[in-house]
């Protein structure tokens, strides 16, 4: 019994260590203007280079730890955003990049916009700006990594719907 607890403890630490050292991010555009997306892409390129923190852009939600959302959520993209979020394994974290993702921004009140990202899925880090500078996005990622250090930061595992 004791041994099992020690084993779990060690295992948890290894998992946290691995996650902090190499978070894989998935990018989802739920109706943004592209401005935020090109700045996210810019953070991957040589001048900003988030790969030095071990951050890797991943194509599949099943392999991703962090979801980076841009843009207000449109009626069409809402279900897809939910589905992508639900497909990610626990524990999962969400970064909302840009004024639109945070509050709807310039698109508040448009008929096809259902709202901002945290009305649809829970968000851990908000990066404001229209669009935020790549430095700001990196700062957001670094803050999230800081948060990941403590395993308690991870939300309790919820019942998955899908």
């Amino acid at each position, binding site marked *: 019994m004791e041994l099992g607890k020690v084993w779990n403890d060690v295992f948890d630490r290894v998992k946290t260590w691995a996650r902090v050292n190499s978070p894989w991010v998935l990018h989802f555009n739920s109706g943004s203007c592209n401005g935020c997306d090109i700045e996210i892409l810019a953070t991957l390129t040589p001048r900003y280079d988030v790969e030095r923190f071990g951050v890797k852009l991943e194509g599949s939600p099943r392999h991703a730890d962090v979801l980076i959302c841009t843009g207000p959520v449109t009626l069409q*993209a809402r279900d897809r955003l939910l589905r992508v979020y639900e497909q990610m394994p626990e524990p999962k974290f969400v970064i909302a990049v840009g004024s639109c993702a945070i509050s709807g921004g310039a698109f508040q009140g448009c008929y096809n916009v259902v709202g901002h990202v945290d009305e649809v899925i829970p968000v851990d880090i908000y990066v404001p700006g229209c669009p935020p500078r790549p430095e700001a996005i990196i700062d957001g990622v670094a803050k999230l990594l800081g948060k990941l250090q403590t395993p308690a930061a991870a939300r309790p595992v919820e019942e998955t719907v899908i």
Partner: protein
Amino acid sequence: MSTDGSLSGKRFIVPIGPQHPALKEPGHFSFTVDGEVVTDASVRLGYAHRGIEKATESRNWTQSLYLLERICGICSHVHALAYCLGVEKLAGVEVPPRAQAIRVLVAELERIHSHFLWLGVAAHEAGFDTLFMYTWRDRETVMDILETLTGNRVNYSANVLGGVKFDVMPEIGDTIRRGLEFLEGRTHHYLEVVTTDQVFLQRTRGVGVMSLEQAETLGVVGPTARASGVIRDIRVEAPYAAYADYPVQPVLAEAGDLEARFIVRIKELFESYRIIRQILDTLPVGELQTRMPRRVKAGETVSRVEAPRGELFYFIKSNGTDNPERVKVRTPTLCNMASVLVTAVGHQLADMPMILAGIDPCFSCNDRTVVVADAGGAAYNWEQIRHYGIAFYQGK
């Protein structure tokens, strides 16, 4: 839908999107394949449709400017420019020549940033990530210039109704010239890479060919059309802002394949460098803005500009109040999208991301409203279409 001639008699449809590693933006494609070969393609758009055109009607003329600028983050300046030119025409306001020249200057800087961005993304789709990293590193040079000039890297807000917001100081002129010199050297290098690298050529030469006739029938615009030999460039055909004083030499190619599209876009960069230098040398002196009335005279107008991806079209209607009555936008990607579906047929599935990247698609620009008619042929009005849309998605 095409009938298939596959050996097994079975049709496979490969869905791609809306979230997919090969697509940076949401769009949905269905490719019907026979083995590895695509026999039919269809597209579903609208994931980024936000309803901007409608929203302009509840904002005043100035507020709409900032909203329309956010149709697309890559070519935000041309959207604002097309709108400003149209509204100024309606209001009968004469914009000072210095402001017009600065608008062209920013538009060309934006073209440089957009073409570099595209070159990187297209190289990435081809699996040539080294080129992607290099082009994006060099692109930071033009981003720095844009930031020094306008204060923001994306969504520069250079335009106001009746002029521009900032002046080009001589010191900034020197910074720009230095940046351009560096970029010009790099552009020569990239032109050499895309025309000589054997591995890369295998992904581009003879792939996604669109003949002159096809290009004309499909109504493609911008560099996609020019790569097939169609001279279609609003800067040349109907010069706007200060393009009449700074004439553009359109860049053409004949082949119509992906390689030609690379060459056209890269050569256009040289043209942009030349125009920017010319503007910096001969910037007219004078005011930056003229007064704009709060209400715009009733009437309607059309305004066209050449975005990095092709012709951008604005229809603006005013009823004499502080809000626009109708703003209709047609973006270049919409014109070019059909060409993807046609050229895709007969190619390997693995070529699809490249063919799609070949038109430099921009979905957030693209997802516009269209008139929807029910089976009886009656057109919906806005309120009905809104309810229909909500019911449709909630019913799913």
